[in-house]
């Protein structure tokens, strides 16, 4: 692996992580063949470009952190921000309510969070004393074990001294304060937010292992993996006599502290888990692997084998895989046969899927298992962390067109319309590509969806998702209604020209344009 791009060591003496742009040459603007993408990444000529038309895609704070960190039990989140930056946490409570407590959701799940509610006066005079007050009030009101501080664009631009406030307050309270530098303006890549969060966890919360727990497996996962996925992972690991340490959602502070004592860190989403995995190995010798994710039968087999290797369960895992295959493989064969016969002319159902770079890698082999033909890919971002694996994917499955963008609905609508796949899969937020008559559905549900039919991980998930995709082929009344009743938000010319990156000028640094004519 000597010719691999260098992934710098994690430096916990710094306030925060480097941006993904710096750490792994991350980008979120590209359209072309995957082979061209990886070649450019190898050469070091891959660069980000400025969009002239761009859509709100989430920031470091408000893509992921606001809706996840406040779920941590026995902790409080303090937003050092204007009042709007924390509003996402309101919706999250609604999303989670659908999970029955019987399935393991805490009965009382009110989120504990406070905002410093920065106002005009604060942006002029600074708000360090307000933050200090909020931290002490959080401690007084909830007696938490940890207090997370999440920062905002405003706090960053006015130059708030986060570490100063922490140094002042920490000696006076019992809770451990964890400052997370997630100013939205910090990076173009929302994935920097994951790293910033894990940096805080590694630096302030994870303890020096007092004892190793050889049956503990760290599993960190994105919001896009449902509650049923958690249960499936728990079930499979349970059969091997292992315990899953799920972080960070609904985890306790203890769960986060004991990350260093686990036998292995296993990924559901590699790009998400990367920084944590590397940090735990570097600081505490916890081994990790990043591929594969447990999506599809073969990927799940290999995911379990990787875990077994680190936990001394090599023999048991083969028994488990045999046992599970007897149950699930026949079902998978049935789904595959149905997909292969759907078109009636012997051709395969073509599919276009969109999501993070981790899903890109795991999902493509899974589509092949299902008998679907992926014709292109859309990924949120691309960086050197997945370079070797993407090259391997191209070697194994052939070249494919790839569009890299973070939630750019117009670009996605364009590619969907141009390629016109039989089935298009889109993120639940992504909007506009729903307006088509052919097959479409979501690429994933959200964690709050507790229906067994929404699962995607492990063996049960592979079957549930396959059946879900089959059903989307059969039930098309929703998209027909959408086509008939609502207008497309974009003018027709958009679909008549060939380039989804029509509004991305070629130069890496955007050239200033003159005043409108």
């Amino acid at each position: 692996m000597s010719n691999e791009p260098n992934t710098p060591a994690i430096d916990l003496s710094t306030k925060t992580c480097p941006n993904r742009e710096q750490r792994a040459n991350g980008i979120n603007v590209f359209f072309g063949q995957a082979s061209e993408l990886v070649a450019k990444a190898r050469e070091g000529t891959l660069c980000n470009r400025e969009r002239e038309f761009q859509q709100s895609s989430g920031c470091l704070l408000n893509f992921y952190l606001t809706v996840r960190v406040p779920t941590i039990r026995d902790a409080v989140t303090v937003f050092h921000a204007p009042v709007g930056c924390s509003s996402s946490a309101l919706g999250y409570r609604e999303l989670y309510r659908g999970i029955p407590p019987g399935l393991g959701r805490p009965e009382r799940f009110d989120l504990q969070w406070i905002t410093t509610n920065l106002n005009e006066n604060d942006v002029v005079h600074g708000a360090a004393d307000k933050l200090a007050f909020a931290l002490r009030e959080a401690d007084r009101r909830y007696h938490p074990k940890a207090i997370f501080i999440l920062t905002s664009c405003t706090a960053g631009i006015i130059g708030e001294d986060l570490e100063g406030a922490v140094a002042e307050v920490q000696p006076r309270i019992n809770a451990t304060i964890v400052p997370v530098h997630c100013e939205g303006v910090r990076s173009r890549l929302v994935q920097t937010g994951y790293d910033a969060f894990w940096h805080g966890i590694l630096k302030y919360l994870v303890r020096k292992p007092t004892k190793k727990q050889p049956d503990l497996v760290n599993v960190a996962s994105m919001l896009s993996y449902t509650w049923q996925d958690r249960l499936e992972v728990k079930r499979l690991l349970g059969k091997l006599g292992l315990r899953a340490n799920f972080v960070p959602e609904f985890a306790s502070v203890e769960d986060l502290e004991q990350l260093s004592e686990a036998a292995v860190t296993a990924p559901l989403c590699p790009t998400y888990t990367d920084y944590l995995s590397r940090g735990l190995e570097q600081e505490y010798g916890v081994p990790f692997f990043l591929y594969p994710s447990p999506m599809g039968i073969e990927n799940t087999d290999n995911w379990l084998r990787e875990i077994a290797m680190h936990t001394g369960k090599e023999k048991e895992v083969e028994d488990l895989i045999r046992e599970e295959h007897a149950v699930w493989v026949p079902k998978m064969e049935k789904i595959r046969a149905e997909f292969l016969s759907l078109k009636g002319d012997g051709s395969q159902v073509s599919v276009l899927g969109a999501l993070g770079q981790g899903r890109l890698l795991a999902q493509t082999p899974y589509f092949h298992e299902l008998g679907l033909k992926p014709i292109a890919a859309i990924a949120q971002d691309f960086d050197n962390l997945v370079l070797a694996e993407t090259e391997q994917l191209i070697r194994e499955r052939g070249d494919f067109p790839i569009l890299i963008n973070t939630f750019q609905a117009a670009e996605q609508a364009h590619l969907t319309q141009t390629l016109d796949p039989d089935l298009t899969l889109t993120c639940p937020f992504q909007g506009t590509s729903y307006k088509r008559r052919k097959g479409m559905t979501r690429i994933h549900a959200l964690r709050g969806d507790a229906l067994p039919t929404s699962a995607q991980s492990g063996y049960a998930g592979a079957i549930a998702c396959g059946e879900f995709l089959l059903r989307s082929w059969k039930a098309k009344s929703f998209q027909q209604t959408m086509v008939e009743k609502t207008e497309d938000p974009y003018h027709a010319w958009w679909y008549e020209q060939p380039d989804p990156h029509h509004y991305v000028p070629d130069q890496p640094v955007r050239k200033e344009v003159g005043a409108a004519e």
Partner: protein
Amino acid sequence: MSAHLSVTEELGKPHLDVLEAPRWSCALGGALTTALGIYGVVPILHSGAGCGLGHQFGMTYASGENAGGALGGTGTPCTCLVEEHVVFGGEPKLRNLIKSTIELVQGDLFAIVSGCVPSLIGDDTDAIVREFKGKSPLIHVKAPGFGGTSYQGYELFFEALADQYLEPQPVKKGTINLLGVVPFQHLFWKGNLAALQAAFAKIGLDANIIFTKFNGVENLRRIPSAELNVVLSPWNGHRAATKFEQKFGTPWQSSSRGPRR
């Protein structure tokens, strides 16, 4: 150690505006969701990249799992400002975004909503918006998040509308505007508006509910022709109604509660 901060021994100087889980958002959130509530209005955010998506969770989902439509959530055009713009200014990016949005996105009115970042870095957003005046229908709602709540964002939207878009018109008898219902701030806002419109129709009044209808911008345009503005809240919509009174002479009245049996 900053001793001057600790007025009281236990907690330091109390800051009563530090809030626990407030059930509202910021001025930008209010202006954005007001725009999203009116079909045909295209919001354009001049802000950080999370200000649109954040309100998908915080305002629309939180309001009974509503969705913001094709131009809400991740669909909202946004300058997605980052460090480079903080240092060098976000004006060129905004100019490009307005130009491309007008070309690309179908809509009858473009509402530029500017947030914290341009206000802090001193972007002259008004000047950029002025470049497009007279060519396309557009307004600028200056709504930095640190400037107020989502309820105030609603007022800011209508004040900008009155100042920059609406024209005085002859009064049309028997028509009223319903103000004070802030979109996505109440679980039943859509149903309430529909029920109120139907109730007013029974007494022969044409109530303009502005939101939720396919002819949203047409409804906006006829706001000045109303005989009366009825404000359905003891505090929301008062600034908007006052503005309409000043600009168009429309009288207004507020009821502190809805109809009762």
